[in-house]
């Protein structure tokens, strides 16, 4: 028997998958023909999964330069009647926001789905924004799965719904869906492949004020139809319990926690439950039915009180005398859990919790001070570690010339190098959004006198680093812009980008160099350094900082993980370094305190290098004042 994979046309078979693979499978089943995305946790595996089978299934899959472009690529395909998907993490939707708001006026011809991967508790993000609000703003209907299986089914259905109602749909995933694992039952794969057809239709596609005014009412009409239809979608389900006083409205994943909570409390037959799979628009008829049947309602949803506010509005409009709880009993921050829902329900039903949570909390609190702090760290041999070190050395030299009080400022950005904000590098003074380092540097230059050395990665440069670079040239900002070029979008899983020379589907393509772009943009100081040559790198950065006007330094070295992989393929040996114990001054600790490489460890008072981790980058040998670190 052929092994079952994500692209097997084997309806009814079961497969154990990651949530994001299930979402990709849903798109495959729907016969998606164009999928565009920019990487971002927890969404990247969707596009990786699709890219891996794109040629086999005759799909087009791309990593776009950023989320706005990704969405526009998908939108164009939809306009031409082809099913298209754009995937991104929640903050990526901010970048795509502009076309998104007008796309909903256009509607959809080919099924058009936006996947937004939200991240409650900001496990791998800079905030925990709730994208249901963005959907509401754009009249974009939202499907929100309660399980991995449902995520797949919803994705497959979303394309059909989008075509049926001629509207763009959003599938809102969260970390615990995308990075959950589950067995799923596969559905049938659609083999339909359409030929894109662009039909000129200025009234629908050319947005001047006139078309906005023409199309908004049409959009509102479409939305009204969707509002009715969601009452009978299988994703919304009302289960009334006889004589129940309490009703729970559970949105998306919270439904799974709710099922566990009522089971745990053994009150399954005493509460009515409304499962919500479309938080926007809500199935109003079902909500009213529930509200009328109970005395109290708990809305269980993660993050903001989105469903709660709408339910309260419905209750008010229809004068239903029911007490509605939500964020008074459940947190606005972080993920929900079976426990949190159980405690809230226990309070409302005056039931005893099944477990003595207080004593568990007490033990956990007693344990916390014992735990070592284990922040994620840059890998051994990571080129960013060397860049950070060189940046600091250079900046300090210049700052010292300017006076004792002056300290250089390091606007940082989002990528692996963000891990260098922890000690010992402490390499970032601000991290806000992708491309933000260069933008913030532009503003700082207007109000402070210290040297300003901003850094971002190569993928981030192509994503959103170029406009602020042009801004610095245009407005003559005296800043240093570092591009840490490791030939990958490393943090999110080493995806290719315009600086790598190949595409998502593995085809070769032109390789763009940040230094060429910087020169073309009119930057007069552009240099490329190898960060593993600390001395030269620091000297060049120092020159850049002293240069009057915007300066760019590209610090180029392949990501250590990719480098190790490639060396293995080439059967090239890695020569690790070791500490010569006769030369090492036991007390100095410079290598550890300046670099924090995970391969350098202490064994009692001895400093040693774990040869299985060391990649032989050699920067520790360059910082050791006693020349005690040598190749093995």
């Amino acid at each position, binding site marked *: 028997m052929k092994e079952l994979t994500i692209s097997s046309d084997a309806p009814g078979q079961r497969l154990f998958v990651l949530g994001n693979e299930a979402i990709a499978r849903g798109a495959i089943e729907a016969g998606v023909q164009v999928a565009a995305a920019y990487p971002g946790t927890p969404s990247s595996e969707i596009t990786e999964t699709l890219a891996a089978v794109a040629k086999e299934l005759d799909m087009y899959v791309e990593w776009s330069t950023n989320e706005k472009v990704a969405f526009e690529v998908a939108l164009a395909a939809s306009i031409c009647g082809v099913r298209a998907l754009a995937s991104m993490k929640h903050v990526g939707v901010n970048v795509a926001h502009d076309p998104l708001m007008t796309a909903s006026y256009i509607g959809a011809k080919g099924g058009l789905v936006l996947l937004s991967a939200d991240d409650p508790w900001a496990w791998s993000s800079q905030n925990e924004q709730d994208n249901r609000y963005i959907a509401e703003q754009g009249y974009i209907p939202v499907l929100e799965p309660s399980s*991995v299986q449902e995520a797949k089914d919803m994705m497959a259905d979303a394309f059909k719904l989008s075509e049926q109602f001629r509207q763009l749909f959003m599938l809102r995933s969260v970390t615990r869906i995308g990075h959950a*694992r589950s067995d799923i039952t596969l559905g049938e794969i659609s083999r339909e492949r359409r030929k894109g057809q662009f039909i000129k239709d200025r009234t629908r596609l050319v947005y001047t004020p006139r078309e906005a005014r023409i199309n908004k009412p049409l959009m509102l009409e479409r939305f009204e139809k969707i509002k009715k239809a969601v009452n009978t979608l299988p994703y919304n389900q009302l289960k009334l319990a006889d004589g129940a006083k309490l009703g729970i409205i559970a949105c998306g994943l919270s439904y799974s926690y709710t099922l566990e909570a009522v089971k745990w409390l053994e009150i399954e037959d005493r509460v009515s439950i409304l499962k919500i799979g479309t938080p926007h628009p809500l199935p109003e008829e079902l909500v009213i039915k529930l509200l009328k049947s109970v005395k109290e309602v708990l809305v269980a949803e993660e993050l903001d009180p989105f469903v709660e506010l709408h339910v309260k509005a419905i209750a008010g409009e229809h004068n239903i005398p029911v007490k509605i709880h939500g964020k008074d009993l459940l947190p606005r921050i972080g993920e929900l859990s*079976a426990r949190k829902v159980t405690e809230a329900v226990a309070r409302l039903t005056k039931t005893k919790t099944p477990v003595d949570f207080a004593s568990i*909390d007490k033990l956990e609190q007693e344990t916390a001070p014992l735990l*070592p702090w284990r922040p994620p760290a840059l890998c051994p041999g990571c080129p960013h570690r060397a860049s950070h070190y060189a940046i600091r050395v250079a900046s300090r030299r210049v700052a010292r010339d300017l006076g004792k009080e002056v300290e250089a400022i390091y606007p940082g950005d989002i990528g692996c190098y963000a891990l260098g904000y922890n000690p010992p590098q402490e390499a970032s003074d601000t991290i806000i959004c992708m491309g933000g380092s260069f933008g913030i540097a532009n503003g700082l230059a207007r109000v402070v006198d210290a040297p300003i050395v901003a850094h971002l990665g190569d993928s981030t440069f192509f994503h959103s680093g170029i406009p602020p670079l042009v801004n610095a040239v245009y407005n003559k900002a005296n800043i240093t812009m570092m591009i840490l070029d490791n030939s990958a979008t490393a943090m999110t899983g080493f995806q290719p980008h315009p600086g790598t020379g190949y595409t998502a589907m593995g085809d070769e393509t032109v390789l763009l160099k940040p230094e060429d772009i910087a020169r073309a943009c009119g930057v007069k100081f552009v240099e490329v350094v190898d960060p593993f040559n600390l001395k030269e790198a620091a000297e060049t950065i120092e020159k850049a900082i002293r240069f009057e006007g915007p300066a760019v330094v590209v610090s180029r070295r392949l990501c250590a993980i990719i480098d190790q992989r490639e060396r293995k393929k080439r059967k090239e040996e890695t020569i690790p370094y070791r500490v010569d114990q006769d030369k090492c001054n036991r007390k100095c600790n410079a290598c550890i305190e300046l670099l924090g490489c995970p391969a350098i460890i202490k064994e009692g008072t001895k400093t040693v290098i774990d040869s299985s981790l060391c990649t032989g980058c050699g920067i520790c040998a360059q910082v050791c004042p006693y020349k005690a670190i040598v190749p093995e």
Partner: protein
Amino acid sequence: MVKEFNILITGVGGQGVILMSELLGRAAVTDKLRVRGSEILGMAVRGGSVTSAIRIGEEVYGPLIPTGKCNTLVGMEPSEALRNIACLSKSSLVIINTAVTTPFTVFIGESNYPSPEEILEKLGKASGRIVQLDAAKTAQDAGSRLAINIVMLGALFGTGQLPIKIDTIKETIRERFPAKLAPVNIRAFDLGYETCRQAVK
């Protein structure tokens, strides 16, 4: 029919926590069991803490193990087992790899690593039973330093409590690794299995 069996695997990025949960999940599906789980990867791949939950059974819905409902906690690193103490109850079993991975914050004096006694005292208070083994050494004995996760997987089956058949998990291991590496990993599994079985006898 299994109603609910919860396994939490904890460790440090690079130890193979995720691979272990993948093997468990696949084997469970082969044995026609329902599986749910989730993991925290994100930034954690770069040497931070990693946890992965695998939940098996007909009455499992959510991706997370509810507080105090873990049946078996697999600690691939002692302090990481301790970090997840809140999932335990008096009926839980804890399996710990005694080999420590010291975070570098300890070397620069930013934090301290707890003593083995402190770890055992706290985990002892929270759980029913603790099994310790040096999985790093066992992996080396089996022939691969990298097989720590497979040793721990063997130990997990050595508890005799799992609803998955031993033959199924072994077959899953054989399928997952290239033919050349399979025997070493099966050996690692067997050694972990035996060590735990002796301990829980």
